[in-house]
């Protein structure tokens, strides 16, 4: 079963957009639940994105892409 990696709505206050600053795992990598996958930045503050499940990662939004709360940045299948 595939799991979406979603930008959580409570990660930061307000509705500012974020930018993807780092992917720590590659497209196609096998990842485990809870593993640090990416960082996103709002203003000058970075937030962690962790794996919601075990599986193979597909990156949907790349470094430098602008993302909003609720966006899917990757999938794990």
């Amino acid at each position, binding site marked *: 079963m595939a799991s979406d990696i979603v930008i959580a709505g409570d990660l930061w206050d307000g509705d500012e957009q974020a930018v993807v600053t780092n992917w*720590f*795992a590659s497209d196609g990598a096998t990842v*485990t639940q809870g*593993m640090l996958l990416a960082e996103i*930045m709002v203003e000058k503050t970075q937030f962690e994105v962790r794996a919601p499940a075990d599986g193979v990662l597909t990156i949907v939004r790349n470094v430098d892409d602008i993302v909003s709360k609720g966006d899917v940045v990757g999938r794990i299948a």
Partner: protein
Amino acid sequence: MSEKVSTTNERRLTIARAMAEAIAQEMRVDERVFVMGEDIGGLGGVFGNTRGLIEEFGKERIRDTPISETGFIGAAVGAASDGMRPVVELMFVDFFGVCMDAIYNLMAKNTYFSGGNVKVPLVLMTSTGGGYSDAGQHSQCLYGTFAHLPGMKVVAPSNAYDAKGMMTAAIRDENPVVFMYHKGLQGMGWLGTEAGATVNVPEESYEVPFGKAAVVREGTDVTIVGLAMGVHNALKAADLLAKKGVSAEVVDLRTLVPLDRDTVFESVRKTGRLIVVDEDYHSFGVSGEIIASVCERDLSVLKAAPRRVAYPDVPIPFSRPMEQFCLPNPDKIVAAFDTIGGA
């Protein structure tokens, strides 16, 4: 701080995370290690290199200071001389003026003045470099300023693997180490992140020894020597030169003091040409020292005059077009080669 390792053995870290991991690992095994600096606590450092530390080690060992470099760097020298192992952050190397007496008249000389009876195991970590329009008091490198003065080791990593290993080595060193990290390599986004700096990093503790340069790309026609951000510019220039049929070798100095002159010389003996890339000012700096190292040893290995691609001798502009005009970049390195390639 520890992260689970994926089954593909990927464990990429930014330099920011690699530095924090090295500090945390040394703090777990050595209670004498503590950290002082501005905004290093709850904020985790302006450049991310102390993230997670105050949560694990508390305010006693992760000490957020006032804006008082003269005071807290002086205090760190005293603590180090008295048996502690402080890691202290000078947020921007540009701020060295108010604390240079502590750094250079105390930290760097106390061991000599005491006939070797006082050790000063202090790590002074400090950010360098520009490229994100922060102007002339927040964008300098000043590598040559610190490397010029005897009594301190000076290191400048280009990637997260080296950053972790060099920070571990710096904390364990019995002598003062100035750990200069380039803001654009930290993986912080707003500082203009260089993707090549974020590499796989072992979770277990390890040291990268000082005084060993790395040949990060092998070639036969020209040696491009750089440090920190300069290495990434050199690697990109090597890609551009390869398209023109030129084979460039790239040397990452990694450490300025002690300086690995042998690796530079051996590379130039093979290629016959030398370009030094340095984001520090052009004159009286690292680039001239590297060139002198080769010329003093054996001028005959050179097929052409050495070249340097460095920062012009001007204060760093705030204006983005003006700053970008001044910074070293891959195209400038290729242009430098074009002036010596036919020789």
